[in-house]
């Protein structure tokens, strides 16, 4: 029929671009595109002309010059002599860290709160309603500042931990210190054999995935359900623990002696006078030795070296008065051999300790990081909870009733029938919440967290005065992070969405 309307062989006329519906939409689109490009060109030209007028041509050379400022939280090597580009990278990693931690905590909290808000328990569901309304109706910046204020005002200062009757105390056998400068937690130190332990753990973990697949096939063919959770736990835990125990035992048989010139022959180690110890940096042996000396109640000074030989030379030249020596080498070093100690477990924990103005050792989680992380997570969790609730409520009640009629228990109805369908509804809004966390993390400067807005868009911008270049790079950075997150999440979304045949 359509063919009959078009006289065959009629030539194309220019007016058809406007009056023929076949071409009109294309014409409009081409015009729109040209207008868009023209306005873009006009804007860019405007920018360049005005910058040239102000004698500020866009120039990115500042990125390779030395930054000159220090950053407190560094996930990679950085000093004030590093370049501005390096500072940008340090900031970027800090942004990614808080965004990653935030996404995980917000998801866990959001899902639990969303499910609990649907609870039949009146008090629980009402409490969750209060939570959601309170958090999503107050600007996130206020939550961040509020969290920081609590950390600064409520937690003790490091110096309150000092002395016999200190006003503050550490938790969990002196391994956790909560101060108003952040939390200090133990740091894992990887000893000899630790790589084998980690490798065993990873292999066992992969093994559980294969086991899960096998159990599923078995269940579908025979109908027998295995307690997969417990078996998976055993598959991971048993070999890892065995390997850990083995290497801890072999390390334990390697003995060292504390050799010192600061102690009289035959005297107790606790009477040691102003110990200064030479150690090889970042080794388990040095951690064990330092903790041994600190346990005597003395203030221990530490000089760190790259190799055993350097530490030995420094000891012999008198730079320090104490050193740890393997039993076999004992004769070759001067000094009193006081106590012996062993090489330590395969993986051991370095505990934080008070030294000078601050705690040292362990991992320092700054309160800027914790405040930002908690505030972002609690705030976004309120939105995720609503998305989860919407997803669950979108599933027809008949679905769960039908499943219950088949004899499935409550938990299985949720896991096998409701959630797989609800995920289709939950994932798309979840993606935008993840993006929100990432973008809201740029409020970090309010609490002095050095994210990419704080380094590239803050101090670098200020010190170099390259506002336009820095902001452009910053925008590109956030765009790249956001696009990556949404691409990954969209892949996941495609895998859970309704499969239509």
């Amino acid at each position, binding site marked *: 029929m359509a063919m009959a309307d078009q006289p065959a062989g009629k030539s194309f006329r220019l007016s058809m671009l406007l009056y023929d519906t076949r071409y009109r939409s294309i014409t409009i689109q081409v015009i729109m595109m040209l207008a868009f490009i023209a306005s873009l060109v006009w804007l860019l030209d405007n920018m360049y002309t005005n910058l040239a007028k102000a004698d500020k041509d866009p120039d990115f050379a500042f990125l390779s010059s030395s930054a000159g400022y220090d950053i407190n939280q560094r996930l990679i090597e950085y000093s004030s002599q590093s370049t501005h580009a390096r500072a940008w990278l340090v900031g970027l990693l800090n942004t990614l860290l808080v965004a990653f931690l935030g996404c995980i905590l917000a998801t866990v909290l959001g899902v639990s709160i969303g499910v609990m808000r649907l609870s039949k328990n009146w008090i629980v569901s009402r409490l969750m309603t209060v939570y959601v309304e309170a958090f999503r109706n107050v600007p996130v910046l206020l939550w961040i500042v509020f969290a920081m204020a609590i950390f*600064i005002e409520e937690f003790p200062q490091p110096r309150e931990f000092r002395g016999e009757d200190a006003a503050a105390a550490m938790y969990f056998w002196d391994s956790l210190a909560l101060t108003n400068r952040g939390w200090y937690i133990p740091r894992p130190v990887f000893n000899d054999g630790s790589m084998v332990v980690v490798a065993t753990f990873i292999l066992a973990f992969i093994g559980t995935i294969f086991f899960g697949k096998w159990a599923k096939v078995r269940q579908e063919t025979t109908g027998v359900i295995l307690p997969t959770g417990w078996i998976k736990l055993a598959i991971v835990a048993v070999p890892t623990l065995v390997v850990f125990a083995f290497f801890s035992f072999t390390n334990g048989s390697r003995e060292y002696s504390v050799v010192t010139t600061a102690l009289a022959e035959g005297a107790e180690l606790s009477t040691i006078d102003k110990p200064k110890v030479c150690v090889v940096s970042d080794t388990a042996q040095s951690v064990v030795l330092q903790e041994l000396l600190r346990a005597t109640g003395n203030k221990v000074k530490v000089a760190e070296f790259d190799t055993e030989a350097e530490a030995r030379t420094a000891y012999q030249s008198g730079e320090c008065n104490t050193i740890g020596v393997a039993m076999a080498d004992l004769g070759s070093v001067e000094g009193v051999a006081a106590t012996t100690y062993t090489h330590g477990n395969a993986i051991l924990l370095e505990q934080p300790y008070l030294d000078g103005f601050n705690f040292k050792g362990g991992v320092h989680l700054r309160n*800027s990081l914790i405040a930002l992380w908690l505030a972002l997570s609690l705030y976004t969790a309120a939105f995720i909870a609503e998305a989860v609730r919407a997803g669950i409520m979108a599933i027809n009640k008949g679905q769960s009733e039908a499943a219950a009629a088949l004899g499935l228990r409550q938990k299985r109805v949720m896991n096998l029938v409701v959630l797989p369908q609800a995920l289709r509804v939950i994932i798309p809004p979840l993606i935008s919440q993840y993006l929100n966390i990432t973008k809201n993390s740029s409020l970090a400067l309010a609490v002095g967290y050095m994210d990419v807005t*704080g380094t590239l868009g*803050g101090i670098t911008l200020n010190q170099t005065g390259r506002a336009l270049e820095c902001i452009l790079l910053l925008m590109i950075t956030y765009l790249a992070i956001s696009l990556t997150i949404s691409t990954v999440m969209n892949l996941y979304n495609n895998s859970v969405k309704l499969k239509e045949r």
Partner: protein
Amino acid sequence: MKKSVLLGTFAAVGVMAGAASAGTLDDVIANDVLKCGVSTGQAGFAAPDENGRWEGFDVAVCRAVAAAVLGDQDKVQYVPLSSKVRFTALSSGEIDMLSRATTWTLSRDADLGFTFLGVNYYDGQGFMVRKDLGVGSATELDGATICITTGTTTELNLADYFRSNGMSYEPVPIETSAEARGQYLSGACDVYTTDASALAAQRATFENGDEHMVLPEIISKEPLGPLVREGDEPWGDVVRWTLNAMIAAEELGINRGNLEELAKGTNNPEVNRFMGTEGNIGEMLGLEANWAVNVIAAVGNYGEAFEEHIGEETAIGLSRGLNAQWTQGGLMYSPPFR
């Protein structure tokens, strides 16, 4: 129809762009108000009093320029700026001049596109600590946590100082002096570092100011002064000579008390030129003949402004030191008014 609207818009944009590029002096006179960038609140230097009226040593420069150009020291619109946004505000034209304890450095002068117009306070970076910390010198600060205002020269000085002394520190970057105060007083940092004058100003506002002390080391030169955008010489001259007028007035012995009498004419030709009763220096700057009289009537001479806002009689309690007249062994020196 649509076309004409579009063209009209372009035309309007063109007109606006044209207006913005005229001289700042003409803009200020046309708007009858001076837009002056100041700090977000620094006792003694720039802070609103209980009536919401901005007062302080940096504010006095704003007032002086308004008095010189518009004849009324209150025709100023104060724009409080954090140290982070101050330069953007100035280069974008949001403010006409910046009088905000800003250090004159080569890179800011040459690379950022600003013109510094003199120094109204010679300062240096210092450290403040609690007395009970038992620290007597900055060289004992190895491992300390230090609160520092971000986006300032102090950040770079601090990094240099600790590196050259082989010490480590934990920087806590802070945006405003109010936040710094909160963190420092709650003990979230051991040390607060910024310009020594600002430390004195902060300490004056503490409840127990005597529990804190400023360490003897001054680790940098911080000449603070007003600045304007580069490439607008007539406007730069006005601000520069307004500041010089304050300094010269003290040297010439002109103050609020004897101003009226001296304005009637004296035997001293330099005083007469200053007062506008002789010569035409006001005209050269594009101002009224009695501009300098207005300046002194509004804020007093340099010494009067200093004593009123930050001098030894005030809570801030700063002595003149480097900021005395050159005749008194200080660095304050105005080029001649002729």
